[in-house]
């Protein structure tokens, strides 16, 4: 499976935790250490085992468009047209 | 009844209910919404009519319908919603069906904001909508007055078969104060003889505002003007404070008038001979009392939460005898007592100078 990663704009995050429950790999957690300027504990990627697939589900459900998603570049398969 | 700590909006709603409100039609809008919400619960509990209309246009026309049936009916809204009711109000005035409307005014123009304002003064006192009439407009400055004026609104509406608007700024709607509610009145059983109820055993009744011929329409208008003259004679109400031994008078209504009260107290402490006139009816405006006072004093300062609307009525009442100053805040800003005090001082000092020079 392709490796992926995400970036969460913690200042924008409102801590709604929707990404958390949507992530199929369960690699997002609430960052209880950080309190952003809005007063929320933001979400953070916690992916020690590199399980994130870059599926972007988290980004798709995030109401505050906080999440950018990246994935390992794969050589494109040659397709006969 | 004992005093309770009541929010203005809730107090108005409960007072209306206790005054025998039989039907309410309204549409949510801040800062009026608690009024509608309170009635959404209480009216249903009491098996009376509560309906959230699809819009203020619909609400005022539902009110028009229920009022045509001769029941105690009311709507409530805030400035943009009241703008949408103008046509309906004009029809109601033209049909002479008793109607009560509460306007909890907010900052404008346009969508503006939800803060307290007195920017609807012209919209409610100069005739709502087209044509020649003026609604009776009651302006409470406390939760207790909000209660008392609401009850009075129904009585006046029925006495004159006219529109009565309770016009309070958002602050009156939102604040809590101890106040006493009236006892619960039952919904009246009988309907007035002009009411639409189905013409059982009598000739049909008709409620309309059309008079195709100019002469007939004029005759009807003269009848309204007659009624308005009677109201002008009988119904002006105001509150005054420190109006003996006066150099200068402050005039303000609702929240502005209430805050001016504090400023006048402060001014008296500082030795200025200042008093307060707080109109409780915006229409009929207490012009007679004001013009009496104007004979005794050197100057008037008008305080409003708008760009100077009641100012015109004050100027009309004092008729150019004495200078009329103005201090206003707009767009939802509520003046503080110290600002008004400063305006009083400024005005008072100029006044003294002027008086000395003469």
């Amino acid at each position: 499976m392709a490796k992926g990663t995400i970036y969460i704009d913690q200042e924008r995050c409102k801590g709604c935790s929707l990404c958390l429950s949507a992530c199929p790999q369960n690699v997002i957690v609430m960052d209880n250490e950080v309190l952003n300027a809005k007063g929320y504990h933001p979400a953070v990627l916690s992916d020690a085992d590199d399980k994130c697939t870059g599926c972007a589900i988290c980004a798709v459900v995030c109401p505050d468009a906080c999440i950018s998603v990246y994935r390992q570049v794969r050589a494109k398969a040659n397709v006969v047209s | 009844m004992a005093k309770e700590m009541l929010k203005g909006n809730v107090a108005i709603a409960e007072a209306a209910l206790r005054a025998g409100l039989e039907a309410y039609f309204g549409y949510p809008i801040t800062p009026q919404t608690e009024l509608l919400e309170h009635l959404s619960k209480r009216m249903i509990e009491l098996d009376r009519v509560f309906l959230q209309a699809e819009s203020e246009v619909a609400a005022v026309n539902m009110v028009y319908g229920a009022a045509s049936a001769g029941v105690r009916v009311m709507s409530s809204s805030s400035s943009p919603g009241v703008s949408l009711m103008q046509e309906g109000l004009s029809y109601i005035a033209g049909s002479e069906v008793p109607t009560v409307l509460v306007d909890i005014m907010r900052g404008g123009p346009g969508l503006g904001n939800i803060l307290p304002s007195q920017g609807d003064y012209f919209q409610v006192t100069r005739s709502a909508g087209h044509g020649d009439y003026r609604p009776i407009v009651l302006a409470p400055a406390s939760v207790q007055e909000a209660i008392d004026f609401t009850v009075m609104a129904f009585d006046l509406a029925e006495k004159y078969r006219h529109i009565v608007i309770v016009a309070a700024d958002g602050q009156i709607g939102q604040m809590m104060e101890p106040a006493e509610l009236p006892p619960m009145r039952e919904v009246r059983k009988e309907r007035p003889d002009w009411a639409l109820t189905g013409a059982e055993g009598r000739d049909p009744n008709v409620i309309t505002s059309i008079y195709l011929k100019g002469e007939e329409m004029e005759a009807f208008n003269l009848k309204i003007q007659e009624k308005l003259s009677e109201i002008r004679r009988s119904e002006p109400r105001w509150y005054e404070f420190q109006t003996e031994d006066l150099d200068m008078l402050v005039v303000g209504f609702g929240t502005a008038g209430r805050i001016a009260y504090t400023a006048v107290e402060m001014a008296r402490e500082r030795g200025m001979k200042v008093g307060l006139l707080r109109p409780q009816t915006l229409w009929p405006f207490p012009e007679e009392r004001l013009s009496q006072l104007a004979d005794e004093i050197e100057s008037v300062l008008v305080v409003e939460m708008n760009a100077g609307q009641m100012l015109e009525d004050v100027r009309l009442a004092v008729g150019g005898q004495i200078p009329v100053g103005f201090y206003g805040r707009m767009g939802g800003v509520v003046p503080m007592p110290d600002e008004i005090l400063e305006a009083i001082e400024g005005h008072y000092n100029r006044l003294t100078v002027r008086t000395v020079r003469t």
Partner: protein
Amino acid sequence: MQEELLFAGFGGQGVMFVGQLLAYAAMDQGYEVTWIPSYGPEMRGGTAHCYVVISDKPIGSPVVRNPKVAIAFNKPSYEKYEGLVAEGGLIAYNASLIETQGERKDIDQIAVPATSLADELGNLKLANIVMLGALLTVRPVLTLDAIREALDAHIPSHRRNLLPLNLQALDKGAAVVADRLAT
């Protein structure tokens, strides 16, 4: 006698309720009183504040530019309102969330670790009552008994079970400043 108090904090910190509680108590004691709220644009989050004016004469303005007493439950409120308190007045603040010594020396500064104390009682939401207990001990606008009665009379029926805890919170707030005052 006229007391003017400003309560300010985040929505959800019980700012409005504690102001109302004080207002109820004042009414029950036969005073004139006004309570008036002010909200920000947000539905959740954001800040909110309310004014309470208590007097033995009819109250003119329910809002005051320079209240004699301010109670700040969070940092932004402290920063916004410290400067507004009338000379010789006081500001009480939730020291659990606000780290400050205060700028102004011409007013009393009362630091109350309200959230921590509430935490000790097992309910963070009680920070507001803790604050009130502390405040009234330092500045006896009304007696604590008046508040106790008001709590008893006006607590919503579905929260009645929390009454003892609320009374405890009040005492806890009173105690912490009493200690300090004693020092």
